[in-house]
């Protein structure tokens, strides 16, 4: 069933070998789940890094609120931002589409080597749609945790974890940096998300989460007219994948089955 042994140490927790089992009996372990999440709320905070954009790389901060319908399914509301929340920068007078100054508002961004190669070696310009970066994302997703497991680290620590998949959608605002170094607002898109990850429970109320989440959207960005090229609209299906590491706080749900004892 949902048993995932990540036994880092190759020996069992208690080392003496068990006697060979008789064909006339089976031994089972039936125990109350130590880290039950059923009916719990989970508030998480993540720091993330985009890893698969060809031309850009940028950082994100994410807050999420999960409600665990049961041990396997959860609904997740997520807000991700890649720059100082709700700050756009100083608008350039008369710009249309709107352009903003303010490089320092993003959590960090840079162009990749691929961008330099295209730009400098091939003397080509990637389309603005390729350069669009997410500003803010707000979405809802469904999380499915089919695997719950435990692991031991050198027979000293016993840990529990669950592995999950998530899928959902939401809306995101994006922007790109034009030749003048201003940030151009490219509007709001519908975004589909798909991800996977795992949470390592350190306490009934606390977990560490590692999440890989892909944001897919159709970037439709206007290319400015130049001497050789007329103004046109570039449309690209963009996948921006973030690796996010965070912490979770869980509350509510079923109280652990512990008979009150005075000792």
């Amino acid at each position, binding site marked *: *069933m*949902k*048993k995932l042994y990540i036994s880092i140490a190759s020996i*069992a*927790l*208690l*080392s*003496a*070998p*068990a006697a*060979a*089992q*008789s*064909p*006339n*009996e*089976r*031994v*089972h*372990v*039936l*125990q*109350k*789940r*130590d880290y*039950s999440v*059923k009916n719990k709320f989970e508030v998480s905070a993540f720091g993330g890094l985009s890893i698969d954009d060809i031309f850009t790389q940028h950082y994100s901060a994410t807050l999420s609120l999960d409600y665990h319908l*049961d*041990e*396997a399914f959860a609904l997740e509301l997520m807000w991700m931002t890649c720059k100082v929340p709700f700050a756009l920068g100083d608008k350039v007078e008369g710009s249309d589409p709107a352009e903003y100054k303010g490089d320092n508002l993003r959590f960090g961004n840079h162009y990749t080597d691929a961008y330099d190669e295209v730009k400098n070696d091939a003397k080509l310009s990637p389309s603005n749609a390729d350069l669009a970066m997410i500003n803010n994302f707000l979405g809802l997703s469904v999380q499915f945790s089919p695997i*719950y497991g*435990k692991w*031991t680290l050198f027979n000293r620590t*016993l840990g529990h974890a669950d592995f999950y998949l998530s899928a959902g959608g939401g809306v995101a605002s994006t922007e790109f940096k034009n030749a003048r170094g201003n940030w151009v607002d490219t509007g709001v898109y519908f975004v589909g998300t798909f991800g996977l990850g795992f949470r390592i429970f350190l306490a009934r109320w606390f977990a560490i989460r590692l999440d890989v989440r892909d944001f897919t959207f159709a970037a439709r960005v206007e290319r400015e007219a130049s001497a050789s090229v007329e103004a046109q609209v570039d449309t690209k299906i963009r996948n921006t994948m973030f690796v996010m590491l965070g912490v979770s706080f869980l509350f509510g749900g*079923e109280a652990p089955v512990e*008979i*009150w*004892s*005075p*000792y």
Partner: protein
Amino acid sequence: MRRKRILALFAMLSTLAAASASAQAPAGLINKAVEAYNAGDLARAALLFYEVRMTDTVAGNRAQAEYYLGQSLFKMGMYQSALAYFNAVFVAGPAHPYYLKGGEGLINVAKALRDDTLIPSQINKYYNSQEFAGMDPMALSRINFYVGLLLYRQEKYGESLAFLGAVDPKSSIYAKALFLQAIIHTRLGVRYNLAGQEAQTQQEYDQAIKLFEQILDLSGHTKSRATRALATYEDIQRLWQLCTLNLARSYYGKGDYAKAVVYYARIPRFSQDWADALFEIGWSFYMRQEYGKSLGALHTLHSPRFSDLFHPESWILKATIYFQVCLYDESKAALAYFKDHYESQLPDLKAIATDASLTNEQYASLLLRDQLEASDPMSKVPLMIRKAILANPRVENFRHFLRSLDKEAKAIADTSEWKGSRLAEELSGVVTVQRNLLEKTAGGFVKTNLIQTFQTIQGFVGHAKMIQLEIITRERGLLKANLSIKAEERGKLAPRPHVPDETWNYWPFRQEYWEDELGFFQYTVRRACPEGQQ
């Protein structure tokens, strides 16, 4: 024999106390002694009080000095020495102006030395209910408890209950007194049960249950009240756990196995009483014919965590369960384990336990020494049995007493003001005598335990043989009925246990012990009995 030794010790202490004055004390010596005492110069005060006690012609001064000499020594942590003088005051009787205080002093020494035998015997001997009525109620409660404990050990249950029932509810010893009363009712329940007196059996167990619950109720079942109770009653935390265990035992005794299971399951995993709870819950499940759960409990008990545990009966229970479900090979395997690990130790154990050349002091080394040299006869005691003896709570009391005596002997020798004094000489004698007595008592305790262990294993050897004989009879029956002797060719393996809901985890056991799984094992076994045979 032991009682004679105890009496001899107290006789010696009394002799010391009764030593007559040989010279007149300088006038005002008692005042100097009191001044030193009040100033906290206890070594000097003790020396001066001793001089007054030995030389003063005024009886009142001698009496005062006698008590305060004890008190000075007590405050210096020289409990055995203090005992000598408190005892002298106490045995002098009500005529002594410090009679009651002497009794309280004895109780304080008993508490400090964790002595629940020697001093309680002495108090019991001189118990004077009329005079004791004037004593501090808390001190009197402790006296009543100790006397009750002593009488309980002598199996004088009625008298013991009377003393224990007189303990003041405000006393810190109150919870312990309740607990002992409950244990006495449990013992009486067992006694009536053996006599086949069902109504009295139930009555005694009900009374025990009521008392155990009363102790648990002292916690108020809330953290804040429990914290207050922890500050009020001695060892209450330990008592709460013991009450839970004994509630389970009482329900088991009443034949209410379902409730027994509930209370056994409340014993925290990995706690001091867990092994006992696992074994006993195994019996409870067995009585409910929940053999899979019973074997599951034993599976934890037989896991590497408890590899050194002395539990011969658990293997007999295991063999019995397999026998009940007609898994004869498995039953034989359990019996073989018992034979290899327990029965095989009988010759060595008998040789040690009945060796007339060994002195009690030699037996005592098993308890009192941390490391046993190869030449020590006690090193031949199998490790599992040694550990079982050392697990007895009284062992720590012996060790505490011994450490205390050694510390005291050193302190007497190191007190510069006493160098060459009669006081130092006298106190050294007292400590030496007590140390010798302690070694003898501890040795007797070890010897008794070794003999009991031998008898326990021997008793189970008889059970094992009975099961073996029954298996042979059953196997013959199978052959006669033309049925396969192999269990796997008879009956079906039961399905895996039902998982109540998704908040439970099911893991198959694959010969690998994970610590978090201990206590959660369940077996499913093949129902291999021919129809109509259970």
